């Protein structure tokens, strides 16, 4: 039993070593968050700049949990006696911590607290939004762009759909009629929604032909739709 635990701990220590890129798969409750926390701390201890560390999670709760854990450990290190500090560092896989490293461990707490830029622990959404806000021009959006919430998105999509399906130019009119004959109104809305969501994949009619069985007229319509909507 002790051997199993020892092996597990050793495996975790290897996984938390920032020198290696690692893929970890584990069941719930086995200590994944601790592993990640250890890894971040070891990165910081090894001198990596805090604003060069990014942790991406799926939920805001997970991000908050992880952030709080990191700070809790660092707060602990700031004031615990030297012996306890040494033990904690050893458990993380740093066998004989130098004086420099100990000093670094102590001062990390205040440094990281005051550092607005890092380490960053946030959700995928949050990270992507921050990129868009920092580089609006490169992303091709207006600065101060705001994320439309779900209601707003539905409203704008409905407007775009209505504009295309219901006020088409003469060339589009024939295509819309074809669609109307083939599918119901609800289904037509779904198809247009689908196209809007997969805008990047629609470079040419061929790729669409290969991926689904839709008539050529509808392919042509899709291109016109995309041009008109975007």
């Amino acid at each position: 039993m002790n051997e199993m635990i020892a092996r597990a701990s050793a495996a975790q220590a290897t996984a938390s070593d920032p020198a290696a890129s690692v893929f970890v798969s584990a069941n719930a409750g086995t200590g994944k968050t601790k592993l990640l926390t250890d890894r971040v701390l070891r990165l910081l201890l090894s001198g990596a700049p805090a604003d060069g560390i990014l942790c991406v999670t799926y939920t805001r709760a997970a991000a908050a949990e992880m952030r709080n854990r990191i700070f809790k450990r660092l707060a602990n290190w700031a004031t615990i006696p030297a012996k306890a500090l040494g033990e904690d560092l050893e458990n993380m896989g740093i066998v004989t911590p130098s004086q420099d490293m100990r000093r670094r461990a102590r001062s990390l707490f205040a440094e990281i607290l005051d550092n607005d830029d890092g380490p960053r622990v946030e959700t995928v959404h949050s990270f992507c939004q921050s990129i868009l806000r920092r580089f609006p021009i490169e992303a091709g959006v207006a600065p101060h762009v705001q994320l439309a919430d779900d209601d707003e998105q539905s409203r704008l999509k409905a407007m775009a759909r209505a504009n295309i399906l219901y006020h088409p130019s003469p060339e589009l009119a024939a295509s819309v009629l074809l669609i109307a004959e083939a599918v119901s109104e609800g289904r037509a809305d779904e198809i247009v929604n689908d196209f809007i969501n997969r805008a990047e994949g629609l470079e040419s009619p061929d790729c669409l032909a290969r991926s689904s069985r839709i008539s050529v007229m509808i392919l042509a319509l899709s291109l016109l739709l995309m041009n008109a909507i975007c």
Partner: protein
Amino acid sequence: MTSPSVYSIDAGMPFARELAMGIAKLADSPERLARGLILLPSRRAASALQAAFLDGADGVPMLLPRMLPVGDFGNDDDGRLSPFLGDDAGSDLPPPISKIRRQICLAKLLRHFPLGGQYPTQPQAMRLADSLGQLLDQLYNADATVEQLRDLLPDQFSAHWQDILTLLGILIDRWPDILAQEGLIDVVDRRNRLLRRRAKQWRDQPPDQLIVIAGSTGSIAATRELIGVVANLPDGHIVLPGLDRHAGDQWPAICEDSGHAQYQLAQLLAYLEITPDQVQNWTGSTDTIPPELPARRDLMREVFRPAAISEGWQRLGDASPMIDRTALAGLKVITARDRREEANLIALSLREALEKPNQTAAMITPDRQLAELVIADLRRWDIVIEDSAGKRLSLCPPGRFLSLLCDAVDANFAPLRLLSLLKHPYCAGGMNPIHFRHFVEQIELVALRGPRPGDGLPAVAAALDDAELRHFFETHVIANLAALIDCWQVPNPTLASLSEGIAEAAERLCATVMDSNGVGADRGAGAIELWKGADGMAASDLFRSLAADGRDSAIDACDMPQILRQLLEDINVHPFGTSHPRLAILGAVEARMHLARAVDAHRLILAGFNEGNWPPRPDIDPWMNSAMRAVVGLPPKNWRSGLSAHDVYMAICSKDIIVTRADKEAGTPTTKSRWLQRMEVVVNALGLDGDIDDGATEKAWLAKFEPKTIPQPAVRPSPCPPLASRPRQFSATEIDIWITDPYAIYAKKILRLKPLDDIDRSADAALRGILFHDALADFSKANATGQLGTDALQQLLDFGKTHFASQIGQPSIRYFWWTRFEAMAAWFIENEHRRRDDLQSIHAEISGMIFLQAAQGPVKLTARADRLEYDKDGQWTIVDYKTGTVPSGSLIKKGVRNQLAVEGLIAFDGGFESLPAGAIRSLEYWQLSGKKSAPGEIKTPFADLFDADEIRDRLERLANYFDQTNTPYPSELDPINVPPFKPYQHLSRSREWLYGDNADE
């Protein structure tokens, strides 16, 4: 040369009071005092000092010194200073440019600069202009020279910064010229120049009067210069707020830490070339200082210890003198479950402060929603208080009203927008507002619920049959909006023209009296209503600026709603005066500018103590990155954290301070403020973590307010009305509801509740069904007997066109429904040709009835058959057209879809008007979807022969059952088989009890 005369009032001391008493002491004679000049950060600070002087005078009359604001962080800064600071009629400085005008000018420029390959739209340009304006102000305040921007090597920064650099360079070049052309100058620039002039004047000719600059941290370069001059005057004195004079060996590290509470003051001291020990303690009152104040300062000094020397925390245990429990006296740190609970606790603490006579209390928070919750909670005790931090104009009634009006005209008064506008409390249209609302509600019911009557106001008027309603609408709505509609359609509109149109229409709509010439409402009367109050005035200023400055700003009318909304959101409306004599709700910036209101209060509450509030989240600067800011001379990105830290320092050092935070916000865990985390570490290292008061008392109070009973979900309603009220007439479709969901019958026929249509109901399946039915009915009536002619299909299509005519305008109907109708019509005609050989006559849309015998009397069953066919054998075929789904055989077998059965029974008995009785040959559903694969289908779910007796018997048993006194009308008795349209689910609250324990969302 004597050293500069610099003092500091320690954090924790009541600022205004100390300042007043100290100045009175300093000015050794009344004349000296009267000739004195006190410079303060804001007008409110000046009033507070005045009040403090009068308080301290104890009824003895005194001539007060002149007290003037120098606008340290002024947001309501208008660039003008008092004549006593040099801004008099003789000043040669041009007048300041208004905020709106600057935004419009910059926006005009920005429209011509492509960013990332695209030219900004007008709303985008306005947004960018606002942000660019803020950058300009920051540059002025920091004394940063923008020429250095030109020197920034483009290859140092990545491609997207180069676009911006080019843009900034050109703008900075052109902006001074544009200003010169207008004969105006930037507000902030003007103020700074005045201050510099005054500084120079005093340097060259030092006045000997008493001059005091108090409460400033010198964050603006021009103010700093003035401070430097005054500090060296013969009778000049600087009084700093909350300098930590005993920072000692921490000071060098503090000077490098831009996020530190003392950083700003450190910068100032460095500029003045003095060290903290050269700053004297300002002694105002002679009261003994309670020991917890210096102890708390010692504690906070450790809490703010710069990161670079944070290893000092390890020595806390054996420092001497030790920081002990005294430092925590009067400090509470309360963690609430969520924002709601936090607001409750804060309100309780504020209320408690009022128990002691003459006690004052203030809450400081950047979280305006939290402030709103506290304000609402205080109403529990009839305490009415306003948020001093103000409210966005877009959330105030006049702002909302103007925004609604703009949205409405933009949508050509579509029903929902029109109603939102007309139902706003301000809307009166030139008559009594109550009567106005009454008419509007009637119009809603008649014309705006259900499908749209058409586009625009005339269509709504046309849909009003009642002459009185129509007259009302034309006189009190259309007449007042006519000018605005015209204004919207004029080609080449400008910001000025559109906003003038909106303002005029808004004034008319707000009036309660008509114009003297009787056309439209009285603008003047309406204007008084619309522009009243602090919020109305702010809106009025905005529209006046737009009218004056937006003449040459061409925009698209469709951009106006968004632009207006942004402009309204950016304006913060402060309430007039102080709303409550003893309590205050403040924002962080406000508290800083008006220290006396905050730190002079007997009790302070620092609320929302999480990251994002304390400190605020750093703005992402779209114009410059950190390196560029450093080159140009702007303060680092986190300079606001330092200001916030000082606010926290000043607040927590007070005698009676409560710090509150919420653990969760909208379900997500929050992050504690960094300074709270630091405090926890320090308190822990000192061994004092058990000694912080965590608000157990307050939470105990709150528990007493908790409701005693936990709300239970509703149970299935099952009313049992008296026999006399029970309905005795049902339609064929109502039978199904009677069987599966009696409560719905109760609601419909006994309570007589009819669900309202949606406003502007979009074309839906029910409408499609009606159009198809009507066309077919017309056709059948026109061709009741005999064979069809060759033009039958055309005839049917013509009937269809007639019925579709009113709806054909809606393109979805034109494309999707009409094609279906055509396909269905073709099938129908072909089917007709085949069937007619065996038929004598066809009857469409015939009403009929029979009576069932029940215990309390007869029950009438009615039906309206879509189609009845009388064949040559004298037998009836009954057809029901369905454009949607057809009931399945199993449902019919279960006896929960009885429409055809009832119609059959009526036909069997001869109950259809003027039609003979007869045997039933067949009961059919015709599914008329019009889809390509099967435009029409005949379905006969009645596999067995029609048995009239069985049906009659079943229905009479049902009627008899409900004719008993004890039979209830339960809701959704048979939930699986209830017909799909369930309008009474809200009333029955079925979601609470129908799905058992699945109420967990």
